[in-house]
């Protein structure tokens, strides 16, 4: 890949969003990942989603662990603070950051090694705490940076580039997220930007733990025949349950849809998730049904994608803890220090 710096000059006719930013204002440094890497498509989708949602780039904190996927926050939202932390520990760092300032938007980017192997515990606990965040796993089923070892999301029977067959059961992060109480759960494919961008937008607008498992083929180590995370395999087995649009206000439903084909879910912040049903019976607000459906389709060899579960009125960690509305990092001495007189009373009670 090229290491040339990107020119700062923008074409004057580039479209601007409501804040006056162009799409370029949401970009970061040039990617150092391999050409054709699925992760770069996800970065592009994040840029697109933030641009379309009119998010101020500096109000986003982007955090990651270690691995190819965890490098990507450098490649989008250059005006945001980023934190490339420790392998598998992004969830705890993000949770701490979120506690310190509830007013920012938290975007966690991780990979399958980072979240399903070394960081499975932290992944699980951040979900069950209901941290208000968008947590994207760029799932390629393989360790890229260390050159091709199986990860914990590799399917049993999947073949490595060198021909070895994976004998271990795969961890399904979507299944775990559903079980552990995530309130927005989606799966997508880096090769399907039309599906992915709205899912990211919905997640960024969600006021609770939002999880997106995004299958993202590794062109260097996991895009061959026999892999279940290759572009070809995922395209052939992709089974989308719905198509999502995120809108504000109630635009009239266009006449393209037949009655009963569209379902609207209003999120706590007023954003409307408009779901075009691809499977008539799929109800994305029914957690148990979603888990059953996923198990069933998995057994049939399909990869179910779309918005799989949504709780439009989630309760996040701050609500659970009962913290003040003012971000904790903005409280001053007067709010935090009880002072000498109070201390004298403490002393008196200890005699």
């Amino acid at each position, binding site marked *: 890949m090229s290491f040339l710096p990107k020119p700062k000059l923008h074409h004057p006719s580039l479209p601007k969003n409501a804040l006056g930013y162009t799409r370029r204002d949401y970009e970061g440094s040039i990617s150092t990942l391999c050409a054709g890497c699925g992760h770069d498509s996800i970065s592009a989708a994040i840029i697109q989603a933030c641009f379309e949602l009119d998010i101020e780039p500096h109000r986003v904190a982007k955090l990651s662990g270690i691995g190819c996927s965890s490098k990507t926050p450098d490649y989008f939202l250059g005006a945001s603070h980023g934190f490339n932390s420790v392998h598998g520990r992004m969830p705890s760092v993000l949770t701490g950051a979120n506690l310190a300032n509830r007013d920012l938007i938290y975007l966690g980017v991780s990979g399958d090694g980072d979240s399903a192997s070394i960081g499975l515990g932290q992944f699980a606990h951040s979900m069950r705490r209901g941290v208000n965040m968008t947590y994207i796993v760029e799932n390629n089923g393989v360790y890229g940076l260390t050159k091709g070892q199986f990860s914990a999301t590799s399917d049993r029977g999947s073949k490595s580039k060198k021909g070895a067959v994976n004998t271990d059961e795969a961890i399904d992060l979507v299944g775990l997220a559903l079980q552990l109480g995530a309130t927005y759960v989606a799966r997508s494919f880096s090769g399907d930007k039309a599906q992915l961008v709205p899912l990211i937008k919905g997640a960024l607008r969600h006021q609770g733990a939002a999880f997106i498992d995004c299958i993202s083929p590794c062109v260097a180590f996991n895009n061959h025949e026999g892999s279940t995370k290759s572009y070809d395999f995922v395209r052939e087995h992709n089974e989308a349950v719905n198509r999502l649009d995120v809108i504000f206000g109630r635009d009239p439903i266009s006449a393209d849809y037949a009655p009963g084909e569209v379902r609207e879910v209003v999120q706590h912040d007023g954003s409307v998730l408009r779901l075009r049903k691809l499977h008539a019976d799929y109800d994305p607000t029914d957690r148990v049904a979603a888990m059953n459906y996923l198990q069933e389709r998995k057994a049939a060899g399909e990869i179910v994608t779309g918005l799989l579960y949504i709780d439009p009125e989630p309760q996040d960690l701050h609500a659970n803890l009962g913290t003040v509305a003012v971000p904790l*990092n903005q409280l001053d001495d007067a709010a935090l220090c009880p002072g000498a007189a109070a201390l004298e009373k403490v002393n008196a009670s200890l005699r």
Partner: protein
Amino acid sequence: MPQPISATNDFVVKFANVNGSGSASANQLFAKSILRMGVPIASRNIFPSNIQGLPTWFEVRVSGEGHLGRRGGVDLMVAMNPQTWDRDVAEIDPGGYLFYDSTKPLPQSKFRPDINVIGVPLTQMCNAAYTDARQRQLFKNIMYVGALSALLGIDPAAIEKLLGEQYKGKEKLAKSNQDAFHMGRDWALANLQCPIGLRLQPSDRVGNRIYVDGNSAAALGAVYGGATVCAWYPITPSTSLAEAFERWCRRFRIEPETGKKRYAIVQAEDELASIGLVIGASWNGARAFTATSGPGISLMQEFVGLSYFAEIPSVIFDVQRAGPSTGMPTRTQQSDVLSAAYASHGDTKHIVLFPEDPRECFEMGAQAFDLADRFQQPVFVLLDLDIGMNDWLCEPFAWDDSRRMDRGKVMTAEMLEAGTTFGRYLDVDGDGVPYRTYPGTHPSKGAFFTRGTSRDRFAKYTEQGAAYVDNMQRLLRKFETAKSYVPRPVEREAAQPARHGVIYYGSSSAAMKEALLALEAEGIHLDALRIRAFPFHDDVMDFISRHEKVFVVEQNRDAQLRTLLINEGSINPARLIPILHYDGTPITARFIRAAIAEKAPALNVVPLAGAAAE
């Protein structure tokens, strides 16, 4: 039969109880009543890793002179646990006293001829007075306090007052406790010779001091220091620190208008997540800490390196216990000195504070946050089980209302707007400390990418050797700057000019002070230096250079502070003589005195003035 021990305001009472029997509050009542008479005490819990059923002891050293270390030896044993009877009886000093429940007769062989036996039929009295099983158990404890008050001359008014305070608003409970207390007291007055040879006399030596445990004090320090985020994982002996933080916060940190919390406490899934939360919160501009013990420190190593290298503040209270591995989880040691000072892989050095008592736990508990923000790195506060989990008599907490949090070098939106150059790892002031920005500060300036990988002065990723070395050297410069910010060592000069010295720290302080007096009485004069922080202030190396030999008193096997001194000051190891106590019990003055006195003749520890006169 040796002469019964006779002592006023100077003896040791040890209670042998069963864990979970409700004895703790009765023993606490006993201890506090002595304090209320103005007589200093030092009290210690000795307990196993267990919730209910195993033996537990509570030791009260009454010391009119105000010695607060553990003394060793037992003058009066209150033997309430049949399971440990034999070893408890064996522990009593000849001429000492054995207090026991005489309801069930015991064979003569169960006693010793050289001690004084005091039997009180506690169970029988309880069974006669109460029908409820739990009441019988609980009031038995209060009853022995009553009997002891008669035997030792404790002021009954002090006890009644304490019970009144304890059960404020629950008058019925206060009354029933007072009744049980008097039942025991009256029986003793009627049936026993009171008082015995061990006596209490009112004194004024307690003054306005307070009686509190180090964990509560450190937690209160964190409240005063402005901590808003606490992430922790339960581990003895640090658990009560996090719990105390929550207690203090409920009292001091509720927003009056809304009832909402100006703090967030997360019981994390493990110590890795705890320190991760702390680093995330500190990165985002909140003051955050974790409380843990040795095994937790081991687990946090990788993250501590990130905090050091990416320069993110973190405060870690380490209440040390006996290691290695699970070790003796309910016994005390100072054995994390090296693993804290040099925590993590690669070249690292961290600020470490060594409080001597709860008062300093409070002070350093608050100061740790200023240091962490100022130097943007981990700060360890090293308590130990002895300070952390025992109530100590100490100077009252103090706070200056004009004091403000020192948030260190934080570049604001205004500074960025004014065009100030921002390089996250740029040493603009020559002190090694760069500016940082909080996330979300400015729409287009001041954002940077935080990483554990090496980077240049402007936070750009690089693996160039020169940039890496430049950064590592700056980190050393920063550590050098910290020397003058951390608490300075405290020197105590010997009564006569001394050739040799002694260095000590943390919970060894009380025993050391007492040992110095005892050594002085024997003509062994030593200048003494109490180290309060790492990096070592220049005064420390100066002290060592001024003395031929320096004893280093520690509660670990491998002389960890001595190692740190030798390494950091390039000291000739032969000049530092280790005095090491590490069996898990708190160090005593007797031990220090004996260990130094044994080595003293070889060192010719004659006072310089005396030598000159010869």
